C-alpha cells in the first residue's frame, strides 16, 4: 500500500502513521482513562496521524490489530505487550514488513523494539513494598499479598519487586498470598475475605497490586471494622485509590504520569517516523535478547496522603472526580480544590 491516501494533518503527512496498541481495560483503568487521552494530546500537538487501539487483554487480538494497522499504512508501531513472547513475535513480524516498533510501558524481553519508553515494573513493586513498610513500621506484622492476574507478566514482576523489599524485613511474616484472575476486583473481594478468615483476621498489612484490588481489600476490612487500621498498597493513582488514600483506608499508591510517558512516546515515534534519531536517557538491558534497548525511563512516584495533591496538580486525576460526595471534606483537609 501507499501512504499518499492518508488523510492526516498537513505536517505529518509524509511521516506516515503511528499506531499504538494498549493492552486491556480491566487490569487497570489507566489505559483508556489516562494513557489514551494523553497520547492523543501528544500526537495532536505534534500534528501526526495516529491510530490507538486496545487489545482487550487478548494477545491474539493484539496480533490482529497489529496486522490491521500495518495494512492500514502504519510505519511506527508502539505496543504495551501482554507478555514478552507475544510482543516479540509481533515485533518480529512488523520488522519483517519494514515497520519500526517501540515498547511502551512494558519491556518486551527478546523483542525487536527500537526503543523502550517506560517506568520500571520491578521498581514499581519495590516502591509498593517500601510504601507498605513505611506505613507498618518496624513492629511484627502479618502480611497478605493480593497479586495481579497470574497470566499477566507485569503482575509477576510487581509481586517480585515487593517481595524483594518486604522479605528483607525480618519482623514481617507472610501469612497469605494469592493471585487474582484477570485483576478482577469482584473476585478479589472473596479471595481476600477468605485469606482474612483463614488467619482469623490476624492481619496487619496488605500488599494489593493495584488500586482496584486495594478497593476490594478495603471493602472487606470495612465489613470487619478494620478499614484504616490495616495499611493497604495500590498502584495507578486512580480516582478510587486517591479517594481511599485521602480517607485513610489506603496507605499508598504509585503514580505513573501518563502525560510524561505519552509525551516521551510521541517524541520517539515521530523521530522514528521521520527517520531521525530519538533522544534517550539511557538503555535497558534485555536479558533474554542479550541487547541494550535505547530507553526513556521515567520515575514512578509513590503517593501517600501528603502527595495526593501533586497527582491532581499534575493532571493525573481531576479534583472534581476525586472530591465527590463524602470525599469533599478530605480534599478540603488536604488542600485540594
Amino acid at each position, binding site marked *: 500500500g501507499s501512504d499518499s491516501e492518508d488523510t492526516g494533518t498537513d505536517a505529518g503527512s509524509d511521516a506516515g502513521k503511528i499506531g499504538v496498541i494498549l493492552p486491556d481495560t480491566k487490569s487497570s483503568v489507566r489505559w483508556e482513562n489516562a494513557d489514551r487521552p494523553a497520547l492523543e494530546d501528544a500526537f495532536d500537538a505534534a500534528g501526526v496521524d495516529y491510530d490507538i487501539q486496545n487489545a482487550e487483554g487478548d494477545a491474539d487480538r493484539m496480533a490482529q490489530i497489529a496486522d490491521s494497522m500495518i495494512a492500514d499504512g502504519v510505519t511506527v508501531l508502539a505496543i504495551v505487550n501482554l507478555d514478552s513472547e507475544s510482543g516479540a513475535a509481533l515485533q518480529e513480524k512488523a520488522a519483517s514488513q519494514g515497520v519500526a516498533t517501540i515498547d511502551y510501558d512494558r519491556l518486551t524481553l527478546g523483542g525487536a523494539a527500537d526503543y523502550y519508553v517506560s517506568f520500571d515494573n520491578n521498581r514499581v513493586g519495590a516502591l509498593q513494598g517500601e510504601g507498605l513498610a513505611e506505613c507498618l513500621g518496624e513492629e511484627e506484622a502479618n502480611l497478605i499479598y493480593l497479586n495481579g492476574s497470574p497470566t499477566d507478566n507485569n503482575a509477576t514482576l510487581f509481586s517480585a519487586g515487593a517481595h524483594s523489599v518486604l522479605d528483607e524485613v525480618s519482623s514481617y511474616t507472610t501469612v497469605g498470598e494469592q493471585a487474582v484472575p484477570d485483576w478482577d476486583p469482584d473476585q478479589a473481594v472473596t479471595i481476600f475475605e*477468605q485469606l482474612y*478468615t483463614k488467619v482469623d483476621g490476624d492481619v496487619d498489612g496488605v500488599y494489593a497490586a493495584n488500586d482496584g484490588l486495594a*478497593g476490594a481489600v478495603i471493602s472487606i476490612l470495612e465489613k470487619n471494622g478494620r478499614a484504616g487500621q490495616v495499611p493497604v498498597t495500590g498502584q495507578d493513582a486512580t*480516582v*478510587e485509590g486517591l479517594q481511599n488514600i485521602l480517607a485513610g483506608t489506603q496507605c499508598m499508591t504509585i503514580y505513573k504520569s501518563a502525560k510524561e510517558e505519552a509525551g516521551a512516546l510521541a517524541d520517539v515515534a515521530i523521530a522514528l517516523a521521520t527517520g531521525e534519531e530519538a533522544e534517550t536517557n539511557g538503555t535497558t538491558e534485555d536479558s533474554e535478547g542479550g541487547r541494550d534497548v535505547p530507553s526513556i525511563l521515567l520515575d514512578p512516584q509513590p503517593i501517600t496522603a501528603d502527595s495526593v495533591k501533586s497527582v491532581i496538580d499534575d493532571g493525573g486525576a481531576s479534583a472534581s472526580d476525586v472530591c465527590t*460526595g463524602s470525599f469533599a471534606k478530605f480534599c478540603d483537609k488536604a488542600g485540594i480544590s
Partner: protein
Amino acid sequence: MTSTKPELADSDFAIDTRTSTVPEYLRAYLGRVRGGDMGALPAVLGLVVLGIVFSVTTERFFSLLNISNLIVQAGPICLLAMGLVPVLLLGEIDLSAGVAGGTSAGFTALAIVDHGQHWTVAVAVGLLVGALIGLAVGALVAILGIPSFVVSLAFFLGLQGVLLWLIGEGGSIRVADEVLRGLTINNVGVTAGWVVAVLVAAVFAGGTLWQHRQRVAKGLQHPPFPVVVVRVVAISLVILAVPFLLNQNRGRPTFPIQGIPWVLPVVVVLLLVWTFVLTRTTFGRYLYAVGGNAEAARRAGVNVVRIKVSAFVFCSMMAAASGIVQASYTGKVSASSGGGNVLLYAVGAAVIGGVSLFGGRGRAVHAVIGGLTIATIANGLPLLVNESYANYLVTGGVLLVAASVDALSRRRRSTAGV
C-alpha cells in the same frame, strides 16, 4: 363435559385418592428415588459432601465467621442463577445476564453518586435498566427468532461497552449509600432476626397444614399426616437454626459482629417469590410448557412470544438485583463487573442444582443450592491452596465431583441393563 359425575371405579384412580399409610408412602418414595426422580436431593448431597471435605481439610471452614461469609458471597450467584431459571426452563440461554447485572448496578451507583438519588430510586433505576435489557434480548429472540446464544453473546459484548462508557473517567463507581452497602456488611438486629424466623416458620407450618387439609377434604392425592408433620417440624427447625447460629458473636472481641446478614432475607424472599411464580401461577406453568414442547403450548393457546420475552425480562431484572448485591459487596462497580466467567458460573450453578439446559425441568431452589455449591468452592479453596494453578485445578476438580455425585445418584435405573 363435566356435568355427569361418574363413580370412580376402584381400578381407576383408587391409589390416587386414598390416604396411604406411612410405610406405603415411604416405600413409594424410595421407589421414586430409585426410579431417578429425586428433586433436589442429589444436589444437596453434593453440597453436603463438599462441606464435609472442606471441614476436614481446613479448620476454618465451619467457623461462624466463615459461614456468614459464605452466605454473603453466595448471594449474587444465587440471585443470578435464580434469574436464569425461567430462561433455562425455556431451553434458552442468556449469556448477557452477568454484564446486564454489572450495567444495571452501574446505573444504580451513578444515580446515587451523580444524581444524589435515594437508594430506593436508584435500585428502581437499576431494575428498570435490567428490564429494558431483558426486553431487548427477549424481543430479538422471541420475535426475530435469532438463537438466544447469539443474541445474548452480542449483548454480552455490547453491554461491556456500555459499562465502560458509563464508568468513564473515574474507572469505577462507588456504592456511596449506607443502606445498599449495608446489604452485605450489616446484619439484621438480633431480636428482629428471631421474630422474622419464628414468623416464617409459623407461616410455613400453617400453610402446609392448611394445604394438606384442603387436599384431604377434596379427596385428592396426599401424603400421610405423620409425614407432613415430620416435614413441617424438620424445616421449621432449619429455619430457626439460622438466627440461633448467626445471632452469636462471630467478630473479634473489639468489633462484635452478630445477626443475620441482610443478604439472606433478600435471597430467601426472592426464592419464595420465584417458587410461588413457578408453581402457582399460569406464567410459571407456561414456562414449563413452552420448555417441554413449545409447539404443544402454542397449540394450547399459550402466547409463546410473550412468555419468552417475559422470561428474559425477569432474568435481567434478577441479574440487576444480583449486580447490585455484588456491587454492595465489592463496594463499587467496575469495568469488569459481571463480566468474565460470572455467567458461566451461574449457569453451572443452576445446572448442578438440577435445572436442565434443555428446558422444562428445574426449580428456583435448585439455583440456590447450585449457587451455594459454587460459592462454597470459591469460599473453601482460598482456605486450602495458594498457588494459582492449583486453585484452577482444584476448582475444576471439585466442580466435577459435585456434579458427579448429582449425575450418579440421578441416573435412572430403569434404562440400565438388568
